[in-house]
């Protein structure tokens, strides 16, 4: 359904010189810096998949999404989605996709969502009867009924976001792009949106592409994850594999009865491959990277030497994995 091959986007950024004299020089001789925002990204996606694109700010996620949605023209490489080349056949292509930019609204500020939906139905030339049936289902499933006739500017962020999602689906697209759809929303609204998306994917086989900073979104929705860093795709695979590759490690949190310092624990454990993280004066975490015999050793040593009131063994969460990836690639950048 989505075929992306060696996609590349280069931006030419004007470098302003400092000061007034610099500004004068800029008038006649401009300096440009080229920045590769997206660098040789390739992947393909089957119909009905739900996948996430993650990465730090500035990793090239948004630029990639904008090329996939036809907003930007790629500098090099190929994109074919639903049989269309997005930037070339834009007007036909966009009838087969829905787009939600979390930071931007597609609803008319002064109109009620219902009026916006009506206008969008005209824009997308949706069949009246079938469109209404579908819209009623959207309103019902996203629970918009109570505020669908109020002006958009009077809605809360959570209400508006649900309306945005409904608006992007008005023409029943086969592919839905969600760019940070849950930014700034409370847990309940997030939950509602996730449930809705999952059901949409199951019943309509809608392909969903998500970019997000919220790892719980990914865990709740996606099996497949793509990780971008500095314009490159550095991981493409299942969430489980991602955990194994970047997060194979365990964290044990000890709760002590007495005040215990880091040093005491360190001397008890001796020199080995682990990391100590203090939680508070009575608790600390031991991070053990990938060695299986280390866990019993750490457990038995600490338990025998100290008065322990509680022990928690935590497997690394996706959130930490993502943090690992980001910090690791950060180091790569420093060394390079």
């Amino acid at each position, binding site marked *: 359904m989505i075929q992306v091959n060696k996609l590349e986007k280069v931006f030419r950024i004007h470098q302003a010189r400092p000061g007034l004299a610099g500004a004068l020089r800029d008038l006649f001789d401009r300096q440009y810096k080229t920045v590769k925002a997206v660098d040789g990204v390739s992947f393909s996606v089957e119909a009905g998949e739900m996948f996430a694109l993650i990465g730090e700010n500035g990793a090239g996620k948004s630029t990639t999404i904008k090329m996939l949605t*036809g*907003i*930007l*023209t790629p500098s090099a490489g190929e994109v074919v989605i639903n049989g269309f080349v997005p930037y070339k056949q834009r007007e036909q292509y966009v009838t087969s996709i829905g787009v939600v930019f979390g930071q*931007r609204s597609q609803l008319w500020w002064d109109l009620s969502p219902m009026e916006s939906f009506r206008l969008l139905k*005209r*824009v997308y030339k949706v069949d009246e009867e079938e469109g209404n049936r579908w819209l009623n289902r959207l309103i019902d499933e996203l629970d918009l009924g109570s505020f669908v006739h109020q002006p958009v500017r009077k809605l809360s962020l959570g209400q508006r976001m649900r309306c945005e999602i409904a608006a992007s689906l008005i023409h029943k697209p086969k592919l839905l792009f969600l760019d940070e759809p849950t930014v700034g929303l409370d847990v309940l609204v997030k939950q509602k949106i996730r449930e809705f998306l999952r059901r949409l994917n199951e019943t309509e086989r809608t392909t969903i592409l998500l970019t997000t900073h919220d790892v719980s979104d990914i865990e709740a929705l996606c099996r497949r994850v793509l990780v971008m860093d500095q314009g490159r795709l550095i991981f493409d695979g299942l969430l489980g594999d991602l955990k194994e590759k970047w997060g194979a490690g365990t964290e044990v949190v000890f709760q002590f009865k007495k005040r215990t310092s880091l040093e005491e624990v360190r001397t008890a454990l001796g020199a080995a491959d682990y990391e100590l993280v203090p939680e508070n004066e009575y608790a600390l975490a031991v991070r053990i990277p990938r060695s299986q015999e280390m866990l019993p050793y750490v457990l038995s040593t600490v338990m025998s030497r100290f008065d322990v009131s509680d022990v928690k063994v935590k497997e690394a969460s996706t959130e930490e994995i993502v943090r690992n990836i980001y910090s690791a690639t950060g180091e790569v950048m420093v060394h390079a």
Partner: protein
Amino acid sequence: MLQVLRLFGDYLSQYFKTRLAYRADFFGELVSNLIFELINLVFIVVVFQHVPLLNDWSRDEIIFIYGYFLIPYALFTMFFGFWDFNERYIIRGEMDRVLTRPIHNLAQVCLESIAPDRIFGVFSGLIIMGYAAIKLELSFAWYDLLLFVGLVISSVLIYAGVYTAIAAISFFSDSRTGIAPMIWNIQNYGRYPVDVYNGVIRFILTWILPFAFVGLYPSAYFLRKEEWYTYTMLTPVMGLIFFSLGLFVWNWGIKRYQGAGS
């Protein structure tokens, strides 16, 4: 194209719906618009009382040209009201949304910034033209009405083309454009008989920024100034050429669009 026309109706009804939501505002603006146009009318008549003959043009002829100019100008500002294009669509990134909808992006931008209250400008223009026509004792045939509509549309296309091309500069340069005010000043010259200017300005107003086709040349036909008829005939041609040019620059700019960071 047909869809755009249908959507035009939808947008228009939405526009009035939002405007009517604030009833006091709506009537207030209606009244102030009317008063503004009235004052404008009085002002024009008074000012032109003091204008003597310009070359071979009588005062009433100049008033007639001015009246004609007001009509395409009002229509143009009604449909091409995106004077804040750079700010709203490029810097704030609204263009992203426009590009993900299945209608030509220029049409969408026009529809979104439509300003129906400019219709009063058309009425003023008609009144001024009527006034001058009576004074000049002009007579019209039935087909003059068709010609008039065609010429007005052509004039609007010229404005639209030039303006679209200027707005499209925003796609190429990320800074605010300072060219628009200059063009704005030049278009003012178009509403007076161009033969009062020197050759260079006349050339510019005819072929480079053809604002003479928005005032003088088309109205010359109704004033029965036969020496200008060739230019009158050229008005639709220039309209098509300049609008195509504007559209071309615009489409080219869309390809160069870099989007706003998010």
